């Protein structure tokens, strides 16, 4: 048992009684980083240990996150700290400002200890499409961590940090959370400010927490959610008190099941039924077209967003994009080009409307929907990166939440062999509180989320 196995609330309580200090916990983070990062490659930049430990000596306990060490997917700008998006294009970029999510966490007293590896620009589901070497799965180092927030998931799973901030455009928080056995929340589009997030696909990008439990996620979300004058798409919807409302009455919850579920997820659903929840079959007929919609919309937006990296501002030419990023930029360019715009981009936007309608209909019959996150456990290194179509299909269950904007929570629910399996709970727009409560009830009754890899 180490400090990093504890929950954020437990650590915060121990800080206040003086039983342990932020220095103790952060020392443990760096021990684990030094031991395991050379194998797992979760980090692109590790902050200066001595500087961080000095900072840890002077923590004022103003929020539950004060003195809690965390890592940031390297997709967020950090003032004075290198920010790469895992691409050679930004290899030496030191930003002049910090993302809103970073500012909020700093204000809450959380301590940033490093920036994590990822698929460059968010382009991938395996964290192999990176110019900083692939991330390895801590449960089996011959397998991928998932992506694109792979390094963030690995850092939490292998106890290098208490939590992480990931970014989810088409499953990038949930997929690595599932494959590494942790919890991760894709928030409602607009719930958390995107200011300072390096854009992949602006109408789909979301900023969210990754941690060991739903309770931890609620504590983090409480601090980072809310409207931001620097992001015009951030929502004015009031931020509820997530942390006070985790105990929900499951007897009032109706869970929609749209798909045939694997054995581990079936067990999870049975467990939720034992706890009082009801289930009902629902249908999402557009689900089979979701990958096609996503791989038109996201590349179109990314071709536009990444046009700015032309060598003038950052000094690195466009030949530095990886093949996967070039593919996405070119598909997007094609879909937006004269003569193809109506056939592809506009059609995908119309199909987006149909996917939203599917969900609206389903949520008339149920409160939440339970689905797999990925079609398989974490594949072997090299399997996805060498097969672009397989790589796209890895996102098949994840992308609808981004296309429709709804929140979705990834929760671990068991193992296939030695590899973790997770499921996702999706709900209507701004239903984060309900999702966190449901997952909290499940995690109170089970131990899957407490399992960690032996390293």
């Amino acid at each position, binding site marked *: 048992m180490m400090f990093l196995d504890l929950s954020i609330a437990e650590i915060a309580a121990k800080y206040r009684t003086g039983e342990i200090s932020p220095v103790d916990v952060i020392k443990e983070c760096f021990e684990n980083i030094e031991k395991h990062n050379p194998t797992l490659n979760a980090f692109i930049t590790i902050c200066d240990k001595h500087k961080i430990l000095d900072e840890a000596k002077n923590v004022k306990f103003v929020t539950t996150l004060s003195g809690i060490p965390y890592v940031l997917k390297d997709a967020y700008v950090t003032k004075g700290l290198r920010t790469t998006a895992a691409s050679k294009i930004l290899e030496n970029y030191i930003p002049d400002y910090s993302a809103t999510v970073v500012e909020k966490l700093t204000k809450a007293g959380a301590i940033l200890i490093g920036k994590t590896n990822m698929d460059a620009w968010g382009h991938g589901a395996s964290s192999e499409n990176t110019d900083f070497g692939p991330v390895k799965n801590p449960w089996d180092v011959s397998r991928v961590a998932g992506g694109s927030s792979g390094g963030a998931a690995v850092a939490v799973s292998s106890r290098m940090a208490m939590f992480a901030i990931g970014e989810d455009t088409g499953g990038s928080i949930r997929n690595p959370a599932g494959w590494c056995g942790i919890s991760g929340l894709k928030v409602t589009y607009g719930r958390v400010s995107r200011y300072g997030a390096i854009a992949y696909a602006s109408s789909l990008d979301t900023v969210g927490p990754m941690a060991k439990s739903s309770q931890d996620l609620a504590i983090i979300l409480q601090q980072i959610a809310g409207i931001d004058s620097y992001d015009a798409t951030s929502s004015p919807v009031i931020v509820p008190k997530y942390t006070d409302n985790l105990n929900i009455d499951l007897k009032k919850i109706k869970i929609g099941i749209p798909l045939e579920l694997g054995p581990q997820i079936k067990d999870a659903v049975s467990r939720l039924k034992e706890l009082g929840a009801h289930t009902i079959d629902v249908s999402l007929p557009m689900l089979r077209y979701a990958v096609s919609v996503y791989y038109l919309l996201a590349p179109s937006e990314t071709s536009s967003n990444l046009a700015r990296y*032309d060598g003038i501002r950052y000094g690195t030419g466009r030949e530095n994009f990886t*093949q996967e990023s070039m593919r996405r930029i070119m598909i997007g360019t094609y879909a937006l080009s004269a003569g193809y715009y109506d056939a592809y981009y506009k059609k995908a936007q119309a199909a987006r409307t149909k996917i939203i309608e599917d969900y609206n209909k389903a949520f008339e019959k149920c409160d939440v929907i339970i689905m797999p996150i990925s079609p398989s456990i974490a594949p072997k290194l090299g399997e996805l990166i060498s097969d672009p179509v397989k790589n796209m299909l890895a996102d098949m269950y994840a992308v609808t939440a981004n296309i429709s904007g709804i929140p979705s929570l990834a929760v671990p629910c068991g193992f296939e062999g030695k590899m973790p399996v997770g499921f996702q709970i999706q709900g209507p727009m701004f239903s984060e509180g309900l999702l966190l409560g449901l997952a909290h009830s499940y995690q109170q009754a089970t131990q899957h989320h407490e399992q960690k890899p032996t390293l």
Partner: protein
Amino acid sequence: MDIAKIAKLANLPLNDDLAKKLQKDLNSTVKLVDELSKIDLKDVEPTSQVTGLTNVTREDKIDKSRILPITGYFKVKAIFNDVS
């Protein structure tokens, strides 16, 4: 797909080997996204964003906290007055 034309539009320098490889990958991607032609989308309004927010504006005043240092930029003569 005319790969040379798309590469030019995307401002991506491709050598012949890479162009050949990407051509194959892109064809299989196009095949996947072509699935959409099977759905009837006649008269369906396109969705470009999901927030429901419209005309989000702010007061037309300079926010000095957002003025960044000018390291690494070209400096040109001011176009607008009143940047005091």
